[in-house]
């Protein structure tokens, strides 16, 4: 039947070896690159699906962080009496929620990668890593809407004479976003890999995020724990803490300025990302057997 065709047999130079997994360091970068179109289409799918679902869809992305900023302003600043200095509490919270809400959204969707896509993963192969990466990218859409809300209130409060001033330092918010993306991707990959092995981890994700939020200066200034010797280590140990705080520093001109802390945060994020990719890559190869 088959014509012996030398060139055709190996012309593509394509050879796939399927073997039981050995070791951790087997990330197929070339394949990820070959599937780059799928990444783009997955992002587009999320974007279109969110848009089309409801008329109010995009509005929820605005309302959610806005409502939580309002509620937390009342709880932390009016009731608990924590001072936000010269910054209006609402703006103070909205600013910190920019990186935090994005982080939390990424971790929530990323950690559920295997469980939410069990059916798809059981029927077709493609590099699984594309799914969490695509949600990190498509969550930028919600982030964009949040930025718009923030800008609106920034202008509003500035017009009323609030002492806020963003200079060129505001540009630093961009590299900080890259760190947030890396960290949230790393954390969600680690959680997804753990969930694949032990289902119980899926219950842990929301609790973890809750704890993490309160351990980050989202609704209070970081001074509260840098000044307190019992808790000051937290500013160094929690990579989200300096990022959240520095968002306010660069966008509102009020807060801690500590490049060393940011450096540690970026380093920890990078390490988390690398570990996450390795753990995820190891889990993905047989994960469908236990889904």
């Amino acid at each position: 039947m088959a014509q012996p065709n030398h060139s055709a047999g190996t012309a593509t130079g394509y050879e796939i070896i399927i073997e039981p997994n050995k070791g951790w360091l087997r990330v197929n970068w070339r394949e990820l690159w070959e599937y780059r179109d799928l990444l783009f289409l997955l992002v587009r799918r999320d974007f279109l699906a969110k848009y089309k679902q409801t008329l109010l869809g995009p509005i929820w992305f605005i309302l959610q962080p806005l409502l939580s900023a309002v509620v937390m302003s009342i709880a932390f600043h009016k009731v608990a009496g924590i001072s936000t200095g010269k910054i209006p509490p609402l703006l103070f919270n909205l600013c910190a929620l920019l990186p935090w809400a994005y982080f939390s959204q990424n971790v929530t969707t990323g950690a559920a990668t295997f469980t939410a896509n069990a059916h798809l993963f059981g029927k077709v192969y493609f590099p699984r890593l594309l799914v969490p990466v695509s949600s990190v990218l498509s969550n930028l859409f919600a982030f964009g809407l949040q930025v718009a809300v923030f800008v609106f209130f920034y202008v509003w409060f500035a017009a009323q004479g609030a002492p806020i001033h963003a200079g060129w330092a505001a540009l630093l918010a961009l590299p900080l976003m890259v760190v947030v993306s890396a960290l949230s991707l790393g954390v969600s990959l680690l959680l997804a890999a753990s969930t694949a092995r032990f289902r119980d981890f899926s219950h842990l994700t929301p609790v973890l995020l809750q704890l993490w939020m309160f351990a980050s200066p989202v609704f209070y200034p970081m001074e509260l724990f840098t000044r307190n010797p019992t808790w000051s280590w937290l500013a160094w140990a929690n990579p989200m803490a300096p990022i959240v705080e520095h968002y306010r520093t660069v966008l509102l001109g009020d807060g801690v300025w500590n490049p060393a802390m940011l450096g540690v945060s970026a380093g920890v994020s990078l390490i988390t990302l690398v570990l996450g990719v390795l753990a995820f890559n190891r889990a993905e190869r047989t994960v469908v057997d236990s889904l």
Partner: protein
Amino acid sequence: MTVAPPPMVEAQGISKRYYLGDPSFFQRATSPNASSLGARAGDEPGTFWCLRDVSFSVKRGDVVGLLGRNGAGKSTLLKILSRITEPTRGRITLRGRVASLLEVGTGFHPDLTGRENIYLNGAILGMRRAEIAAKFDEIVQFAEVGAFLDTPVKRYSSGMFVRLAFAVAAHLEPEILLIDEVLAVGDAAFQKKCLGKMDEVAHQHGRTVFFVSHNLGAVRALCNTAILLEHGTVAMQGTPNEVIAKYLSSAVPDEAGGYVSWPDDGTGPGGEEVRFASITIMDEKGERSAFFEAGQPITVELRYRVQKRIRGARFEVFVNTSEGELAFSATDHLKQSELLEPGLYRSVYTIPGGLLNRRGYYLTACGDVPGERYLIPLREYLSFTVGGAGNQSSLFPEPWPGVVCPRIDCRVERIS
């Protein structure tokens, strides 16, 4: 000097172990005994080997039929070949790009339009965007959904959905294509179109195709080689005819006596609307059998449980020779009522004596709404043998050619 090219697909000693139930640490430690399902002495308790030491090699351009009973390991083998999961032991070398089609419409998003889903699904199946764009018009034409291209697919009829999904998959151009029983969907005309497309893919484009199906006729028509899996091992690799014959003979033990039945728990063949309850082949006296005298009539009874009211259903039986050639088909179309209310029904078909040849046959059956959809996909259920005396061929000792052997009247006269 010509050296034979390396095989396109080479599997060496593939084994796959599954944990029974939830593979939690606790359960693994406490599982009292392994299920009898495939477990053997020396196995870790609570595990079973779904595939054991499976080896084969497939040449470029081969179209391979993968046959086996449910649970023989076909799906697992296909999942390993398509890299959805990894083998526990062994090694497979694939010398080309692979695409698998284990289900029609994987990754379709209901809220997206037909157009958007073509791109998304194509990419999920491994196509580049430029490739999809180049074939876009062809796909739309094949799927016959032109007017609804910008409608969300959740508004599509099930027929349209399946056509679109298959059309995308049919235009994949990998060197190795893996297909699982996806043809058991859509209406008969579309199935025919799909088989035609697969034939084209395999024979004109010289791709290597793995094809899992219960439709033995399709396996016979499309494949040039076949592999039979039994209890997770390769029982046979050979020509489709040889393998089909062995497959049907190996099917006898659990279905001896021309009878197969399913409990009323939703496991029978079919879907939400109707499922088979039992299929019986009987002789004149109403006794179940898998062996019939050539001269005697044979009665086939299909029992089916209707769960939801159906309009315009019909049930059909097909009798094929053991080599897979269709001898004839019969339908209850003219006797069926237009509306079937929930309940247990039977359709009884009588094959006149003296029609069939002395040889092995198998019976396939299905239910459908003509021109619209399948209710119960076409699949083979029982095999039986016709022999003894009573038809034309039994007058002669040698095997008589022909899928049937009716009595043909014959006169011989001298004219001049």
